[in-house]
């Protein structure tokens, strides 16, 4: 059943899969110069308090350094812990990826010992590795990203499987979703979709995963699939303004044009957009709702209504040039040349270019709900830091 679902996901994102598979193959097939050589891009001895280059570490040494980093993380020194982890992993893996198996074994084994001492320690550990993944996007070493991604994902799966509670599943789903969002930002869309889909298996109403899948399918032009996820999203989270907007626009573009919820698409589109205008949606969403509702009216030949919507939009967003440009076009279509010219002229007197446009905001991934999800995840993780600290002490004594 799960394999079937995975096959479907892979099939849906086949165009993107090729790139990801190619990367994995590349990672596996790269040649390997000998270890131990000190390179300019690995941490220097002073990075580890005067100790030797991490590339020369054996597994116990890596584990010792790793536990210290986890202890630092548990103490709340987040930035330092992430930086130390980056330095350790970068040093062990190396630019050529030679040390990746050694690092994997060392960290997995250390985490396993912690998990055996206290299962809940997994959550703060995976959050740490997820944050290191985010940091590795700036580092041009695919082995580091791959390691952080795979470790975070594996730990989340273990946490969900052994936790055996709804809460554990929901937290694991949040980790996978957060990781998926970082991956989506990096344009690895097939992988992001796979993580979102897995998140939804663990937590079927995960807001960000539903929105993420909807946005990914929308961006690839597969509107019926986008509509499916976005409809689920809006049903589970009626206040999800971005989801509602994406649903309206996916319905608008869907060539199938099937009826949704017993309403003709055009009526449903208008209803959704009107709701967004009337509600307390984020400004960029309301701005777009005005623009797109006017487009919809224009397409239906209701130019008078389009004009009224845009004029109302201008009262709410008086410095948005695009509303004036769109209104000029509508007025010109209605034969009101003079009024159209005035709108074009008005644009020149507006304060221009200070902020990204609402349409650009729509093009990029970064929903407000994601920030809420990450904040919630961090809070849950923080509540377990004491357990992590305690488990580290136990393990050290045992060691």
């Amino acid at each position: 059943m799960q394999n079937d679902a995975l096959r479907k996901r892979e099939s849906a994102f086949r165009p993107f899969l090729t790139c990801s598979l190619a990367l994995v193959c590349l990672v596996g097939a790269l040649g390997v110069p000998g270890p131990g050589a000190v390179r300019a891009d690995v941490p220097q001895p002073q990075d580890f308090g005067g100790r030797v280059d991490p590339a020369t570490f054996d597994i116990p040494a890596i584990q010792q350094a790793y536990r210290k980093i986890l202890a630092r993380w548990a103490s709340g020194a987040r930035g330092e812990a992430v930086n130390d982890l980056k330095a350790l992993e970068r040093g062990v893996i190396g630019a050529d990826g030679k040390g990746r198996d050694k690092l994997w074994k060392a960290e997995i084994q250390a985490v396993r010992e912690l998990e055996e001492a206290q299962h809940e320690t997994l959550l703060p550990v995976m959050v740490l590795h997820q944050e290191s993944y985010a940091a590795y996007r700036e580092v041009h070493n695919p082995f580091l990203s791959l390691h952080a991604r795979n470790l975070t994902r594996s730990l989340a799966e273990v946490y969900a499987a052994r936790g055996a509670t709804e809460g554990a599943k929901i937290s694991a789903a949040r980790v996978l979703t957060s990781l998926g969002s970082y991956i989506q930002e990096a344009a690895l869309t097939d992988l992001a979709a796979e993580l979102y889909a897995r998140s939804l298996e663990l937590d079927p109403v995960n807001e960000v995963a539903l929105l993420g899948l909807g946005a990914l399918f929308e961006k690839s032009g597969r509107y019926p699939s986008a509509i499916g996820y976005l409809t689920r999203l809006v049903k589970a989270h009626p206040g999800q303004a971005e989801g509602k907007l994406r649903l309206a626009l996916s319905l608008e573009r869907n060539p199938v044009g099937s009826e949704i919820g017993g309403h003709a698409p055009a009526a449903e589109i208008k209803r959704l957009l009107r709701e967004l205008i009337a509600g307390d949606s984020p400004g960029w969403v309301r701005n777009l709702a005005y623009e797109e509702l006017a487009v919809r009216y224009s397409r239906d030949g209701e130019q008078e209504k389009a004009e009224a919507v845009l004029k109302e939009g201008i009262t709410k967003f008086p410095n948005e040039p695009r509303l004036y440009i769109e209104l000029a076009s509508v007025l010109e279509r209605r034969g009101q040349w003079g009024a159209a010219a005035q709108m074009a002229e008005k644009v020149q007197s507006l304060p221009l270019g200070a902020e990204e446009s609402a349409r650009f905001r729509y093009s990029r991934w970064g929903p407000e709900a994601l920030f809420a999800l990450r904040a919630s995840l961090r809070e849950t993780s923080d509540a377990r830091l004491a357990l992590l600290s305690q488990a580290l002490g136990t393990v050290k004594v045992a060691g």
Partner: protein
Amino acid sequence: MGIPTRPTRDLRRSAPLLALGLLVCCLSIVRPDRAAGAAVEVLFLSPAQATPLFGTVDLAVNVRSDEAIVKVVFKVDGKPAGELKKPPFRVQWDVGQENVPHHVEVVATTVSGATAAAELTSPAVVVNEEISVALRTLFVTVSGSDGKRVLDLTRDDFRVLDNGVEQKLVTFERGEVPFNAVLLLDTSESMRGARIEASRAGVHSFLAGMKDVDEASLVLFSDRLLAATPFHNDRKPLEAVLAKTDALGGTAINDHLYLALKLLDGQVGRGVIVLFSDGTDVQSVLSMQEVLWKERRSQSLIYWLQLNEEGSRRTSISSAWRDFAANDREFRDLQRAVIESGGRIEGIASIGGVEGAFKEILSELRDQYVLGFYPSHARHDGKWHEVQIKVAGHGGVHVRARGGYVDY
């Protein structure tokens, strides 16, 4: 920025004189004053003589004096419309939408107290079905088989066919016909660095090559509008705007191409848009069909300088706003709008070619023939009229001009 409001549709149909006056600045009644010992003269630059006025109009004068000017006062229909102490002596005034004559008076005063005045009275549009035909102006580029432009043609060499029916040419000019250009520059993120520098160099060359009677406006865009200047003959303020603009954000060509066409509506004379971009539209709210609709009702030329350093064929994209098919359609419609306007698409393979491409457009504008005709079978039915231009007795020449117009 002056954007005279267009008259209503019916009035515009009935305004042949407006079109005839398009390319001419007029000297109206001038009252120089030498009484105080100074020679002062006021000349109207805008509006053109015998032009019916509607909506917001540009009022502009040139003041010649052998001593300093202390003020220039504009009055419209007896009411003060503006007072300026230094050039440019240009104000905007809303004369309303009524089809009535308007009286414009401008008085300049020098430092010694000498004054001079100029005045004109704009006519109302004569609504007369027998003459309710607008002048159609065609900007024509003729090239020989060697690619060089052919510059020695006469009026008799041209035949203009409107839906296959030969038309009588009522105006014919070549060369120094003034233009108003909108330099429409993509300053999206991908233009950062050398590309925007090349863009600046191209604009600099274009502006430097303009004549005193030419004007340009700079419209800079990414996913949003970053700057839209008034039309200027002075290149310094335009270059200053470009110099301080960063490349950022996405790309929205359609919305800003529409804006450029709209800004040219309000300008007297030949309208030209030079679009310089390295990408395709992603974020516009207007479809290219909307822009095409507008383009077919405009007389402006559109040139598209398409920077493609990769030198490869364009690849399809799918975005949050449009799928592959829709994006392809937008691209084709943009190509169509450019070609239909009588302009052209210039592919630029390296940034080293940008400056030359701008210069070449300027050179082409100087070499264009300007033909005018009154359509012999205008019906104002909103239908498309295909226009063909033939050059007799010159085998192998290539003629490029607007391919038609909407009869409205």
